[in-house]
């Protein structure tokens, strides 16, 4: 008996999967985050989902536990200033219409969502106010002002579980995202699932593969020392496998964003998270 259990354990170790994320818990400013939970029913070959935080080095992890140490907070502060800054032909700022940014608590976990038949993201909601209500220019999808603002709005929901709708009107978008997730692309002929579903927890050269969750987005990356949108990350992963990325803000990446969000149902919103 003892012996066979021993062997089984050894085999699990050799396979690596399921062990390589650490078992630490993430407490940010005294609030406990959910970084591990049962996978939603729609995920067939993954039983447990983990935040990307669980795959990072201790030094990177520590930066996220304290808002004074979190380099992403500099950008959140910039967004607090932007919130009050009047821009555009109407002479209005966000605060002219939205009294407190805290009122957006609960929004991040539900996005992207279908509105009037269209799949809309946080970036689009912000830009809709800028162009249609302020008479201002749209911000660039992954530009500094947009990622700062989406981090500030996302932060109001920090600790809340990701909870996107994938049925009803959302179903067709979700299916499109799922299809993209599993399609091999690029000269290297790889799919998102090859790395983030089949091999999370193991090293791909110098990188420790996570499940590619987006509950921490926008995320501060030590690599480029700025806030990064989820679409920017998808683009980077596609280029690494020598694939022509889809457009940031385009229908494909929006569908992929919905699908990825749904693979993280129940994980805490962590933005502004810190990654490498």
């Amino acid at each position, binding site marked *: 008996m003892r012996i066979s259990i021993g062997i089984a354990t050894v085999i699990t170790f050799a396979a690596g999967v399921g062990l390589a994320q650490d078992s630490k818990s993430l407490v940010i400013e005294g609030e406990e985050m959910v970084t591990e939970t049962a996978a939603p029913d729609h995920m067939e070959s993954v039983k447990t989902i983990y935040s990307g935080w669980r795959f990072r080095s201790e030094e990177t992890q520590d930066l996220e536990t304290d808002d004074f140490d979190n380099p992403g907070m500099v950008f959140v502060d910039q967004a607090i200033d932007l919130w009050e800054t009047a821009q555009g032909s109407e002479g209005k700022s966000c605060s002219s219409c939205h009294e407190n940014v805290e009122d957006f608590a609960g929004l991040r976990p539900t996005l992207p969502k279908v509105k009037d038949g269209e799949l809309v993201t946080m970036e689009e909601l912000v830009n809709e106010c800028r162009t249609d209500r302020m008479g201002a220019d749209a911000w660039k999808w992954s530009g500094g002002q947009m990622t700062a603002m989406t981090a500030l709005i996302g932060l109001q929901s920090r600790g809340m579980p990701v909870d996107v709708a994938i049925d009803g009107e959302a179903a067709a978008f979700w299916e499109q995202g799922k299809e993209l997730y599993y399609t091999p692309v690029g000269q290297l002929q790889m799919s998102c699932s090859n790395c983030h579903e089949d091999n999370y927890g193991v090293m791909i050269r110098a990188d420790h593969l996570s499940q590619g969750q987006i509950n921490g987005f926008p995320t501060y990356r030590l690599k480029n020392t700025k806030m990064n949108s989820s679409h920017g990350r998808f683009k980077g992963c596609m280029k690494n496998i*020598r694939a022509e990325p889809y457009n940031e803000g385009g229908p494909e990446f929006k569908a992929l964003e919905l699908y990825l969000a749904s693979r993280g149902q129940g994980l805490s919103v962590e933005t502004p998270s810190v990654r490498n």
Partner: protein
Amino acid sequence: MKRTTGIVAIAALVVFPAMADEVAPSEVKFEEGVVSASLTGTAGDPVSGRDVFANRKLGNCLACHANSDLSEESFHGEVAPVLDGVADRWTEEQLRGIVSNAKMMFEGTMMPAFYIDSGYERPLEDFAGTSILTAQQVEDVVAYLKTLKE
């Protein structure tokens, strides 16, 4: 005069046969994943194959496979089988098949096909219509893999 021409002609003969014999990616003959004939007719060079294996812009095989022979390289992947002793497990012809297009040997594998030049979905423009490795680089890597004995 005649002599110079002769030398040029000989030089041309030495360089060209290899190119002429080169098997294009679409012409490679697989039999159950195995490629029997050399892709170039020129023996592979294990030393350059070792470079191709490690180079991130070429084989980048270390991204997925660990290999003790390259212990000077600091990061070895854990995605795929360790290649120590791989020459004891596979013949040269099998290795040529695996490196050229592993999908012919291992159905549904995530290992990229290194010697195909079509069938890509959305390749970046610079890489469309090209194989990851050249025919000679494949031969070099195969020659290198043959040195990995235990």
